[in-house]
C-alpha cells in the first residue's frame, strides 16, 4: 500500500511545504485566539450566561479587543526574577506548541488550482514535515513544552510560581508516561510512527476506525491529553483557587498571552491526534468529504475539553499522581500486552 502511494503522490516542493507551514501558523494561531472566545461562550452558555457580547456582533471581535489589550499592556518583570529566563519562558511554550503542529496532518493533500496566479499548480502536502517518527516527534515536542511553565515558575521569584512549576514537573512527567504507553498499542497495530500511515490505516470507513480496536488506548490518551494540555480536571499548574495563577502569576501582557496561545495550540494538537489516530482521520466518510469531517472531529474534541471544564471539578495533586501511576499506567501496560498477544495470535 505504501509503495502505491509513493508512486501516485506528486513531488513535494519546498513551496508546498512553505504554504502548508503558513497555513498552519496563520490558521492555528487565529483558531487558538478564537478558541478563547469559543471557550468563554461555551462556558457562559453552560452556566446560562451570555458571554462576551459587546465587541462586534455577539462579541465576535472580542479577540481583537483582547489582543490589543495584551499587546499594549505594560510588560512587568519582577525585581528578583531571573530576567533572561523569565523573558524567554513564554516563547518556549508557544514555540514548542507550533513546532509540534509541523508534523500533524490536518487536511488531506491538495493541489492549488491552476487559475490562481503565482501559486497555481503547487502541490500542498497534508503535513508540513512528514518525518518518519511523526507521532514521537509530536509527543516529544509537547513534552518539551513543559520547560515553558517549569522555567517560568522557577524564574519569577514567587512562591506560587514555584509551586506551579513543581506541579508542572510532577504532572507532565507522569502523564508523558501514559500518553506514550497508550499510544504504543495503536503504533504496534499500524506498524508506523507517521500520522499519514495512521490515517491510511483507517481508510475502510466507519468500522475501520482505531477507536473500535483500541478503546482503552483512546480513553487513556484522552485523559492524558487533558493533563498534557493543562485542561480542567488536571488544571493544577495554574489552579486559581489554590495557587493564584501558578506559573503565570507574575506574567502580564503578551508574555502571559503566549502561554495561552501555546495552551490552545496544544489543545488543537491533542484534538488533531485524537481525530487522526483514533477517529478515522481525514478519510472520506460516506458522502462527507474528508477535510470537512476532520474539522468536525477536531472541533468536537475541542468542544469536549470546554464541556468537561464546565462540568467537572479539579482534582488534588495526590489524586492526580494516584490516577496516573496506580490506574492509568498499569491499564496502559496491560493494554499493550493484550494487544501484543492478539497480534501474535
Amino acid at each position: 500500500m505504501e509503495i502505491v502511494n509513493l508512486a501516485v503522490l506528486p513531488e513535494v516542493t519546498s513551496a508546498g511545504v512553505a504554504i502548508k507551514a503558513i497555513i498552519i501558523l496563520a490558521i492555528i494561531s487565529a483558531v487558538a485566539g478564537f478558541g478563547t472566545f469559543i471557550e468563554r461562550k461555551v462556558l457562559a452558555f453552560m452556566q446560562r450566561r451570555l458571554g462576551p457580547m459587546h465587541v462586534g456582533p455577539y462579541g465576535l471581535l472580542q479577540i481583537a479587543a483582547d489582543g490589543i489589550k495584551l499587546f499594549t499592556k505594560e510588560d512587568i518583570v519582577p525585581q528578583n526574577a531571573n530576567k533572561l529566563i523569565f523573558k524567554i519562558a513564554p516563547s518556549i511554550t508557544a514555540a514548542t506548541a507550533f513546532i509540534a503542529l509541523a508534523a500533524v496532518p490536518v487536511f488531506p493533500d491538495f493541489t492549488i488550482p491552476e487559475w490562481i496566479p503565482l501559486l497555481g499548480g503547487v502541490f500542498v502536502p497534508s503535513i508540513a514535515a512528514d518525518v518518519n517518527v511523526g507521532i514521537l516527534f509530536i509527543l516529544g515536542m509537547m513534552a518539551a513544552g513543559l520547560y515553558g511553565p517549569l522555567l517560568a515558575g522557577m524564574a519569577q521569584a514567587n512562591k506560587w510560581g514555584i509551586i506551579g512549576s513543581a506541579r508542572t514537573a510532577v504532572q507532565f512527567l507522569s502523564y508523558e508516561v501514559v500518553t506514550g504507553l497508550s499510544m504504543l498499542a495503536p503504533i504496534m497495530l499500524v506498524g508506523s510512527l507517521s500520522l499519514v500511515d495512521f490515517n491510511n490505516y483507517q481508510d475502510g470507513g466507519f468500522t475501520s476506525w482505531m477507536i473500535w480496536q483500541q478503546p482503552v488506548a483512546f480513553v487513556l490518551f484522552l485523559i492524558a491529553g487533558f493533563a498534557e494540555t493543562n485542561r480542567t480536571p488536571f488544571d493544577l499548574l495554574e489552579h486559581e483557587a489554590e495557587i493564584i495563577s501558578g506559573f503565570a502569576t507574575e506574567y502580564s501582557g503578551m508574555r502571559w498571552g503566549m502561554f495561552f496561545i501555546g495552551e490552545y495550540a496544544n489543545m488543537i494538537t491533542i484534538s488533531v491526534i485524537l481525530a487522526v489516530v483514533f477517529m478515522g482521520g481525514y478519510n472520506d466518510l460516506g458522502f462527507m468529504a474528508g477535510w470537512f469531517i476532520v474539522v468536525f472531529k477536531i472541533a468536537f474534541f475541542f468542544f469536549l475539553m470546554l464541556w468537561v471544564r464546565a462540568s467537572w471539578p479539579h482534582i488534588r495533586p495526590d489524586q492526580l499522581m494516584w490516577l496516573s501511576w496506580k490506574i492509568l499506567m498499569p491499564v496502559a501496560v496491560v493494554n499493550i500486552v493484550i494487544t501484543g498477544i492478539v497480534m501474535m495470535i
Partner: protein
Amino acid sequence: MSLEQFKNRNVGEQPYVLIESEHRPKSGMGRFQRVVNRTFKKELFTGLYVTMREMINTLFRGEMAAVKYPFEKLPISPRYRAIHDMLRLLESGHYRCIGCGLCEKICISNCIKMDTRYDENQRKEVTEYTINFGRCIFCGYCAEVCPELAIVHGGRYENASEQRASFSLFEDMLTPIDALKQQQEFDGFGAVTPNADNAIKKTPLAY
C-alpha cells in the same frame, strides 16, 4: 445543668464519636471496587449531561439567566421603594399635595423639608418641597401616611450621583404636565410584580 461543659475549651479531649457516614473499604481490592463503582455509576457523565442540558435550555429554550442590564431591566415590584414621585390629579392636572405636612412630620430621617402658604383662595399651596436623598432611608412612611396619595415611591432606582446629599425638588418629582396620561397609579404595598406569573415556580406538596 452546670456550665462546666461549655467552659471546657479543650475540644480535642472530649469524647467525640466519629460517625461512619459511608462504608469505608478496608482492603486494596475494596478500594479498587469503589473506584470502579464510582466510575461506572455515571457520576461523571451525569455532570456532563447537566451542563449540556443547561446549554441547550439556554440557547434554544430561552432560559438565559443573564439580563443585559443597562439595556434591559427586569420589572420591579410595586412594593419597591425607590425615588419618590409626586402625582397630579387626573381631572385638573393640579398636584395632589395639599400641604398638610404629615410626610415632613413622620419622616424619621428628617429629610423632607416643605414650606406652604395660603393662596388667594385660602388653599394651601406648596412653595418649597425638597427631599434630601443623602439622608432618606427609603422607609416608605411618607408614602404610607399621605392622605391624598400625592407622594408615592416610583421606580427610579438608579440614583448614583456625584454628590451623595443631592436634593430633589418638588418639580423634579412631580409628574410632568404633558405626561399626565402616562401617570401610573400606585398599586399599593400589597401588589404583585408585573411579571409575577412568569416568576412563579411550582412547589411540590411534599414540601
